[in-house]
């Protein structure tokens, strides 16, 4: 930028044109009036042709002002840096009159002239408040709209491009499974013959037998009196007494060979007395006796306990082991009046504490009595 010219009575601010031959400045007169000044540069001042052109342009502006034209305000063509000043009035072509011949002054530099015009006219950033016309405000709004719309449009386009690139870069979907699919084979038909084993017929509800004498299998001072509760719905071919309502029956299962039951005391993690019962149907006493060995081996395996070894009578065998724990077992062949059929019954009792051995013996003796 050239040095701001110093002309008495005027102060200059913004330089509108910085041309090698001349500069155009915006400024104020001492009265506050806005002015535009054209000041020749050192090169311009030294060039006689340029000086003459300025003198000619100034003369025309001073002598032949047209309508709606602001006259030339001041000029000094003989100064070291000759200048011409005109008023800058909105809507009036004062500056233009200075600028129109300016191209002649600075040698047909059209782009420089246009730049000055643009900055005088439209650029709201360079005009003062009172000089800012509706045109400038509209241009400002347009720029702000561009500031919003352009990044938005660019974002949307870039988003689509990114998404498309992602899709293009994605691995192609596999067409064949990692493990080959075997051919479907014509299946064998689902069997039509029953595959389950025949179940043991249900015994139904079997009543307690109160009219039979007590027949102890193991010697005990304790009697059924210890057993307060009657239990009839065991799914077994006989009913029995249990010590109290805190006992419960566990239906282990019914195989085709035998029914298995377990009696435990509710809420006790290490039950004081455990009772296991098995019942195997047989056609008659001879059949029961023939099945006894296999039955003993099966129920002792399923329920735990020692098979009964000592014969009490022709239909009853027992084992007893005193001590801690107390363990006793019994196998008995009997004909159930409820089912009207023969059964082999296996029972095992175990008492963890010696004080409970009496209870265990009473349960075993009760089963013997009920299978009389």
């Amino acid at each position, binding site marked *: 930028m050239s040095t701001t010219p110093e002309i008495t009575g005027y102060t200059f601010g913004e330089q509108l044109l910085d041309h090698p031959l001349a500069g155009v400045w915006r400024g104020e007169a001492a009265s506050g009036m806005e002015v535009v000044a054209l000041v020749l540069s050192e090169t311009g001042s030294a060039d006689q042709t340029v000086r003459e052109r300025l003198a000619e342009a100034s003369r025309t502006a001073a002598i032949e002002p047209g309508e709606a034209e602001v006259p030339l305000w001041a000029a000094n063509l003989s100064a070291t840096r000759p200048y011409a000043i005109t008023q800058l009035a909105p809507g009036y072509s004062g500056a233009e009159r200075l600028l129109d011949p300016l191209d002649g002054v600075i040698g047909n530099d059209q782009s420089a002239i246009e730049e000055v015009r643009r900055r005088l006219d439209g650029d709201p950033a360079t005009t003062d408040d009172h000089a800012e016309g509706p045109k400038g405000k509209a241009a400002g709004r347009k720029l702000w709209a561009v500031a919003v719309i352009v990044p938005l449009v660019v974002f949307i386009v870039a988003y689509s491009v990114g998404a498309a690139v992602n899709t293009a870069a994605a691995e192609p979907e596999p067409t064949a*499974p990692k493990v080959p699919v075997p051919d479907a084979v014509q299946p064998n038909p689902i069997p039509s013959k029953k*595959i389950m084993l025949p179940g043991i017929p249900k015994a139904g509800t079997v009543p307690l037998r109160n009219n039979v004498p007590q027949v102890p299998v193991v010697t005990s001072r304790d009697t059924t009196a210890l057993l307060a509760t009657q239990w009839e719905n065991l799914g077994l071919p006989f009913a029995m007494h249990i010590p109290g309502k805190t006992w419960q029956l566990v239906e282990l*299962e019914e195989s085709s060979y035998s029914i298995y039951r377990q009696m435990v005391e509710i809420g006790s993690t290490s039950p004081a007395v455990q009772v296991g019962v098995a019942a195997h149907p047989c056609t008659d006493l001879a059949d029961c006796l023939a099945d006894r060995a296999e039955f003993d081996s099966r129920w002792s395996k399923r329920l735990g306990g020692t098979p009964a070894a000592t014969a009490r009578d022709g239909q009853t065998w027992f084992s007893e082991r005193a001590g801690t724990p107390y363990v006793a077992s019994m196998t008995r062949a009997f004909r159930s009046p409820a089912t009207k059929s023969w059964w082999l019954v296996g029972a095992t009792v175990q008492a963890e504490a010696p004080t409970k051995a009496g209870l265990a013996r009473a349960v075993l003796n009760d089963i013997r009595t009920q299978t009389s």
Partner: protein
Amino acid sequence: MQSRKLVRGIAVATGVAALAGFGIGFAAGQSEKPEDLPVARKLPTDLCARLGDVSALFPGPAELQQTGTGEIRCTAQSDEATQPTHTSAKLIIAFRTYATRAGSTAADVAREHFDAESWPVLPNRPYPTKLRAQPGGEEAWEIGLVTTRGDLVVEITYTASPIDQAAAQSAALSVAEKAVWEAR
């Protein structure tokens, strides 16, 4: 100058918008159209009936009841309470088909579900098969079986008492093969 600053601001914002747009667009990828979303193969609505008579697996007559649409279940049961003897059986056949997933065919997805089952593999079967036999007593068995072919996984649970393990397993296997055939 203010207008220059604004123009420069627009240029910077445009650049940022371009980068962010590309980045977010790449991360999100193109949205799937509903009609392009993978769907699992639909199984026949009369699938359970097609399996035929399964009464042999039960103490008495039994009929498979079909439930479900996404996963079809065929269930038949003989409750012990309804039987004159101590016998009970229950059969559940569950069919599931799987849809493709990004990077996997439907068969791969089905295979993953099959592989997730920890039961032992039963070799020399027409389809990959896993079987577990759990004893419930002297002659009580629960047979768990899972098999897969293509996009299909069939899971069978057969619980019966009294029954031999071999008979229960063989029945479950023949039901499984029939099930795969009917749902192929």
